[in-house]
């Protein structure tokens, strides 16, 4: 007997399955990441996953809550993956652990656990790391074929866990700043956009390699929309607004403002549009609210990228807009059946 009250039947789709779909949708992006940058990212993903599950279990135990049903919901895993994808793969192991632990314990469970956190936990974890350990957060891997030397997987593991590089190899030889970071620095040095983009780290659309990872996330995102796991509102409003704003600046001054396509395929734009901003817990619930939320986040992302102190603005834009969610929801309540304009 399903219960004492109707409805007695339910559609067999669970939170766990929804989150599993989201995790699956990340796989094309991750696969391309591995293809272009090597398997080090898999280490961070694993580390983050283990930490997330461990910390979640601990937090549930402390609160005397049931551990198994929550651990099985896959939400902690998703937080872990999103954070791991935002951290340089060669970052020391403890950076991943600290960031994930903070995300799960402080920004998720201390706010009441699943469904109650006002901020996206992965982005809180990212913000904590980039503010506390800015140097470690800039050691991004150079894509295959670009660096003078490349590390074997074993050597990468050695560096991640023990901070030891093979003799004669310096960190600078295997890492680089992100394409967005480089762009920012070069523009500060009075570089011209066209000259900067001729640097070898840039590919056809944006960063060499990273543009393909972004394309992978786009593919996963389209899958999520097709599967009706997420609605189109947030990704479309986010990418559309980012494109429009970047396009406007690019039209006005192409020498100092890169193309809108560059913005879409750089940094965390694609990941954010489909996987981070769409976190249902921390985004608005009304369709109109979602459009406002995502468009504002895109505007903030662009402003931070173009005029702010950080190379990418996705995380901060997300967190700033997370604050506004209750307000946006309250002011965008749709009209109900029979009470729309022009009806009695």
């Amino acid at each position, binding site marked *: 007997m399903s219960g004492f*009250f109707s409805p007695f039947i339910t559609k067999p789709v669970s939170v766990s399955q929804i989150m599993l779909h989201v995790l699956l949708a990340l796989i094309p992006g991750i696969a391309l990441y591995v293809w272009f940058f090597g398997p080090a990212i898999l280490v961070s993903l694993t580390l983050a996953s283990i930490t997330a599950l461990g910390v979640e279990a601990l937090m549930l135990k402390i609160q005397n809550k049931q551990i198994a049903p929550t651990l099985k919901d896959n939400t902690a895993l998703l937080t872990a993956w999103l954070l791991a994808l935002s951290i340089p793969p060669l970052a020391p192991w403890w950076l991943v652990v600290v960031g994930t632990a903070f995300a799960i314990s402080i920004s998720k469970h201390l706010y009441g656990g699943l469904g109650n956190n006002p901020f996206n936990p992965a982005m809180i974890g990212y913000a904590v790391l980039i503010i506390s350990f800015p140097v470690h957060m800039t050691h991004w891997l150079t894509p295959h074929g670009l660096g003078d030397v490349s590390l074997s997987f074993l050597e990468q593991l050695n560096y991640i866990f023990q901070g030891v590089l093979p003799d004669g190899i310096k960190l600078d030889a295997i890492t680089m700043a992100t394409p967005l970071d480089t762009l920012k620095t070069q523009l500060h040095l009075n570089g011209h956009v066209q000259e900067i983009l001729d640097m070898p780290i840039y590919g056809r659309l944006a960063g060499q390699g990273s543009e393909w990872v972004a394309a992978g996330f786009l593919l996963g995102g389209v899958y999520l929309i097709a599967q009706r796991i997420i609605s189109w509102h947030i990704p479309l409003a986010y990418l559309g607004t980012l494109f429009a704003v970047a396009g406007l600046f690019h039209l006005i001054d192409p020498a100092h403002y890169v193309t809108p396509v560059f913005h879409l395929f750089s940094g965390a734009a694609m990941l954010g549009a489909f996987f981070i901003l769409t976190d249902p817990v921390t985004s608005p*619930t009304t369709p109109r609210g979602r459009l406002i939320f995502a468009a504002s986040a895109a505007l903030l992302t662009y402003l931070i990228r173009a005029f702010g102190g950080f190379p990418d603005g996705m995380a901060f834009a997300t967190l700033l807009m997370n604050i506004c969610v209750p307000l946006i929801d309250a002011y965008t309540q749709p009209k109900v*059946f029979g009470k729309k304009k022009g009806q009695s």
Partner: protein
Amino acid sequence: MRTLYQFHGGIHPPTNKTQSNHTPIKQASLPSKLVIPLHQHVGSSAKPIVEAGQRVLKGELIGAPDGHLSSAVHAPTSGTISAIDMQIVAHPSGIPDLCITLIPDGLDEWIHREPCDDWCALSHTELRHRLRQAGVVGLGGAVFPSDVKLYSHKHKIKTLVLNGAECEPYITCDDLLMRERATEILQGAQIMRALLYAEEVLIGIEDNKPEAIAAMRAAVTEGCHERMEVVAVPTIYPGGGAKQLIRVLTGIEVAAGVRSTNLGVQCFNVATAYSAWRAIGHSEPLISRIVTITGNVGHPQNFEALIGTPMDELVAQAQPLPGTTGYIMGGPMMGVLMPSMQVGVIKATNCIIAAAKNLFPAPAPALPCIRCTRCAEVCPSELQPQELYWFSKAKNLDKAEDYHLFDCIECGACSYVCPSNIPLVQYYRFAKSEIWAQEASQKAADAARERHEFRESRIEREKREKAEKLAAKEKAAIEARALRAETPQAVVSSARPDADPENTMQLKIQLAIDHAKEQAAAIKPKNTEQLTPQQLAEIADIEARRARVREIAKDVTHIDGHS
């Protein structure tokens, strides 16, 4: 091709209708007893008008409607009334209600009936009266007395919607009724149309019932019914909700708290139309209905069952299977779990599902809401169920009302899709009942306060009136004294006809006191009385001189006035 409209949301649960719609409607065998509740409809309970031990005939009135919004209850077969007492009825609460128990005598002997060949000759009032006396109520589940809904002025109602959508999974009673008794449904619809002065009749049937659609269309053609159309509507739950069907067929959205008749539409279930025809055309009261028996039974099918038939006796005729844990009355989306398997079939019983673990597995434990808004996407009332859930859970009832809690039709679509398995509808039912309870206690408090305030103001008024009377008396006494000095009669007369008796009495007392005082005063002689004739002559002389002086003074004043 008619333009159809859409309503927001909706779901597509497995329909599970094919199990029961392959066999024709079967007459259920006469049960061992009938337990007929007196309250089967919206409104006040029927009044029992029979006594235990009395023999009644089939169709005899045993419960008379009591008040405007009420309905009649009849003996479904001939037999003896064995008890009129409180019994558990077909309501999930399990709270007993007044029922009449009838032991059938097996004769099935009808009361005298007067079939009506030409109902057009009857006045609308008479038609409504007959429907009321026949106990015709909405058979789609709402059980609202039909006569009350069949009231209209000319040119007010454009469309009469007949609801044959039957969107709930498992239920096929309307499907079979339409297949087998289409002509009679349409005759009922004609009566309804006449009473409402409705221009057109639209019969909405979900497109998963092609046989019913075909039968109804054939009946429309055969009966040459003007402006009557059978419309196949998309199969989507809750497309058979009155508001949703009206929306799909006419585009009109009937908001919560608005009467559809004010928007030119009235809606009845097809089975209600059928019953209306049986009541008017055949003089048969509503004593039986079609009930789908399905679920954990070997031979799911539809029965025409007498009202009051114990559910287990009815299910027994569909080859019940072991493992049944209980009966659901209605469908799996909005049905209710019966408190006992022996409760009697009522007018609202469209379906009995024998529930078993394999059909309705236990739901996974509820997880926290992740605000995914799948509920909002399927809500036909376009609500934000997740908001309502938070407000209901937090008992923030004012907010829940602000977010249109009472527009919720409890269709269960939100609960159905919730990935966190939250029994959302339960929260809304809880919040609604809390608000009703609060309103009731508020009303009681208001009534008490009003009573108190009234009492206070009455006491205040009485005090004030006393004071005013006292003041009036004193004033009257003063005036009376003044008047009495000149014309005592005038005072008495003025105090007589218009003053209230109390006042007159007071005045009389006052006058008496005054009189006594004067008498007492009169005992002491004044120096102007008891004078000698000589003194009197002197006084007269002085007075004459004074008068002369007055005359002169007058003339002087006169002259002065002119100068």
